[in-house]
């Protein structure tokens, strides 16, 4: 069992949720998403971000438009669709439940101990 692997699996699970929540706040450029997540201390590679955005866009959760830039070719700006919003809200509900559950389970030390005992 690799600790890195487990950590990245955990992060991966909430990645889509985080990205959607950033886009929900308004139209963004992909590198802005990376910046924002970095600011929240959640690192993401752009190489991972682009495929994810494309997938979400193909699922019609996101849409994009070309915005002229003063340097070079136009850039893609992403925003959320109605379908994406519904999807996001469901994710949010799930996240809240999950966070509650995890908090409840992890907060009291006794609970943790019982769990370890059971496991043994």
């Amino acid at each position, binding site marked *: 069992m690799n600790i890195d692997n487990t950590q990245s699996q955990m992060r991966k699970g909430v990645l889509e949720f985080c990205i959607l929540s950033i886009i929900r706040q308004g139209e963004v450029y992909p590198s802005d998403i990376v910046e924002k997540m970095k600011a929240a201390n959640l690192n993401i590679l752009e190489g991972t971000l682009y495929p994810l955005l494309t997938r979400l866009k193909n699922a019609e959760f996101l849409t994009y438009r070309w915005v002229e830039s003063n*340097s070079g070719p136009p850039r893609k700006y992403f925003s959320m669709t109605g379908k994406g919003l519904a999807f996001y809200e469901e994710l949010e509900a799930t996240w809240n439940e999950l966070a509650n559950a995890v908090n409840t389970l992890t907060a009291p030390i006794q609970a943790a101990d019982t769990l370890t005992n059971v496991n043994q």
Partner: protein
Amino acid sequence: MKKVININFQGRILPIEESAYDMLKQYVDSLRRFFANEEGRDEIINDIEGRIAELFDESLKKGKTCITDDEVNTVIASMGRPEDFDADENIVKAQLEGEAGGGSRDRIYERNTGGAKTLYRDENNKFLGGVCSGIGAYTGIDPVIIRVLFVLFFGVTFLAYLILWVAVPSTSSVVIGSQRKRLFRDADSKILGGVCSGLAQYFSVQIWVPRLLFLIPFFSLVFRWGNWGVGDFPHLLSFSFSPGSIVIYIIFWLVIPEAKSTADKLEMKGEKVDLNNIKSTIQGDLEGFKDRAQTFGNELKERAQVVGQNISDAGKRVGGESAGAAKRTGNGLVNVLGVLLKIFVYFIVGSIIFAIVVALFTGGVILTGLLPAYSFVLEDGLQKILAWGTLIFFIWVPVIAIVTWIIRRIAGKKSSSSIISLTFFAFWIVGIICFVNLLVALGSSFRYRNTPTEQVANLSNPGINKLEVKSNNFNRYYYNDWFNFEPFSTFDDDSVYVKNVRIRITKSTTDSFQVNMVRMSNGNSRADANQRASLIKYAVLQRDSTLYLDKGIAITSQDKFRNQQVIVTIAVPVGKRIKVGDKIGLFDNVHIDMGRGNNYWDWENSLDNEAFEWRRNVEYVMTTTGLERVLKQLNVDEDNSDRDILEELKRNKEDLKQEIERQQRELDEKKRELEKTGDTTYKFRQTTYRYKETAEKTVAAVKTKRATKSVPQNSLFINTMSMPLSRFVF
């Protein structure tokens, strides 16, 4: 000191160090492979490339003169390598391994193990375009051998060389970002080896275009078959295509790699090929060609000397090296043999399908052409319906189905819908049912024979010395149709003439000529057959010393054809002569029934006929032992007119013998020709006849046994329903 090159990357011109460029290219390639199976991969790669270009642009704006290794490394770190995208290494590995060989891609000499080999034009060892050396490197065969093969088949290979030159990228051509298009065999929409589909992908044309081009020589072959008169149309095209298209196809199949991995497939579809692309490739190569040709000449001279000296040294070394080389060449050979075997199998299968289609088609044409004959054979109602059903569903439906299938395959529609094929199949089953029922119905219509009875034909003057048999012309004019189906010799509106007439010559018991006639017919019952036989109108008429016989039996569409026949028996008294002048009936022979006097109808197997060689337009005389040619009898017969002929013949005998020899030679030549063309017996018969007639004219009565074969006697009784194709006269 580093070389800086300018690249066009996602719409931005970037000065970049060469080493940095290599890194960048490798990185983009690795991304491309990683996302190869991803839906929307092109978009992802474009987005990432766009972002990279943006980052580079930013650093250039900050005052950098060019993109260096450091910049590329920074960008790669921020974008992430494929290995970083997924923590699960196995997935990454699996994804990357499928597309292995990227690193050593432009080093074609390194045969990467297990990975997809790719074909490049070898820039370092090139002579003209580097095609041959590239192929050599790809197959592991010495490029010199490939070159020799290309030169040997020059003309045919010229086209192949041009296409490969244009389509296969050289080892030096590396364009980043949108990769240059490459020629692959497209296995996804292949029929044989995917060569045509690959070419279609490469030149962005519809898939049927290359397929048609490759097929044209085959069409031309069909058109030329037997000079069907389409003339020289395919000849213009065959200059470059025929029969080279097969050779070209085989070359392509062997040489062009199959697009196996997704990356290959991307490259196959790559960017558009335009004329400028092609022009610049060929122009650039041609410029260097002149110099290379010169140096090649010089080198050859030097090398010859050096080789002479080194030959002994080399001999020793070869022992060690040859093992490895043989292995490589062996591998290449196994591939080549595999492909050749495949082609062979496809060729056989193709020939079989082709033969079936042609046979069906010919059958269809003939049976359709015979439509007017139907009413003379078939009864109205069920039989006719069955005949139509057979014609349409049993014959034409499979023809249409196969042709449709071929067209669909050529057009690249691979998945023919099951509804269509099921419909065709159902129709065909209906056709089979019709066919079987028709056979059964016809079988019962022809089932019974009548009881044959002899009728005496009254002769006006039976006591003459010599009887000549001639045909009674039809009392109507008729066309000689384009189409002639025996025994139905002539159609007009309401009747058909069936040449089911045979002549039989026997020895008369009296001293006068006697002519008997037997009428025969089939029917669905004995009474029916008897009735049909009695309806046959056949005229036998004597005028002076000539006996006129009808050429055929007239049958109206009410009568129906039920294999009506007439057998005319001419009894010749001993010492009198007979000569058959015209052709009467279907076959050009006369049955000779000697001595036994039995009325054995199954004369097809009679041995008398085999032993006796009958000739038309020759006088025979009846002796106590049987018929003999007049000439032989002349010594005994003191006939004046005949004696003159004999003397004249004796004088000319030497000339005639020479004439015979000459014609014999001619005949042999024609026979050989005939065997060469492999035609049916039709031609053979014609030549034989021609020979016979001319020979008879010149030789008149000289009896010589010649090696000519008489026309085989086919059984009339059986054959009328299953006429061999050779009898159809187009």
